[in-house]
């Protein structure tokens, strides 16, 4: 057994000895992952995990660092970010990811990302058009700072 496996099993034993509880919590988490676009409430989730609401909230937060509601919002915002790569209308995307009102969607989206959904969508469009030039800057900077001994320098060919 490697050093890493020994450490892993020790942490598991010390902090996550009640595996059977987590199996039930995972069930609720997968429900959010798979059905984030539906209206999901705490009762449904707690029932899926077979816990009382209070107990469920507490264990869920311990496992994932977020309350079930915070995680649901997180999943919806992440999905919205993907959909906003397209040119679909913001109001449609809001509905696709499970929000009832576009004002709460816009508010939560801005709180998480710092941008309104439409500003984010515009920014993605712009970034895609300049992305083609970006790798050149990264590697010039990267090799320069790492000081790798590069033979046959061909920087001329790649200078922007």
């Amino acid at each position: 057994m490697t050093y890493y496996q020994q450490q892993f099993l020790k942490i598991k034993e010390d902090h996550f000895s009640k595996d059977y509880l987590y199996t039930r919590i995972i069930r609720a988490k997968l429900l959010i992952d798979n059905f984030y676009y539906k209206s999901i409430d705490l009762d449904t989730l707690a029932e899926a995990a077979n816990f009382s609401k209070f107990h469920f909230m507490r264990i869920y937060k311990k496992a994932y660092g977020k309350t079930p509601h915070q995680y649901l919002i997180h999943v919806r915002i992440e999905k919205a970010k993907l959909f906003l790569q397209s040119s679909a209308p913001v109001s449609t995307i809001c509905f696709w990811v499970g929000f009832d009102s576009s004002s709460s969607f816009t508010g939560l989206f801005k709180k998480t990302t710092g941008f309104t959904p439409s500003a984010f969508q515009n920014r993605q469009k712009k970034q895609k058009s300049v992305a083609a030039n970006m790798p050149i800057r990264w590697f010039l900077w990267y090799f320069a700072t790492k000081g790798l001994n590069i033979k046959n320098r061909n920087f001329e060919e790649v200078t922007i």
Partner: protein
Amino acid sequence: MKIKITSVMVDDQDKALKFYTEKLGFVKKTEVPMGEYKWLTVVSPEAPDEVELLLEPMGFAPAKVFQKALFDAGIPLTAFNVDDIQKEFARLEKLGVAFSMKPTTMGPATIAVFNDTCGNNIQIVQV
């Protein structure tokens, strides 16, 4: 500020590209010849515009010592997320990938560790 690139040190960039694309299923994003080495990155086909993984040559000798120490202790250099770890484990094992740790659950996460054939242990995680 945002994280746009991360790297794994590899002993051979061509071999690494083969493993990371043909076995793991990533796709090549950038390949720019730079003399002895090249700027070589791969991305996940599920997120081609997100973080790139640099298959980084070890031009700096002490890197080899660091890489070997991590490898011998079974410590993963980095980790990738998967949706279904059992499925991924079965797929990779069928392709001949050697696992030092089979899928093991710890609380809400299940992890497994494999050898990338380029000197590293890599962990996959399902959360």
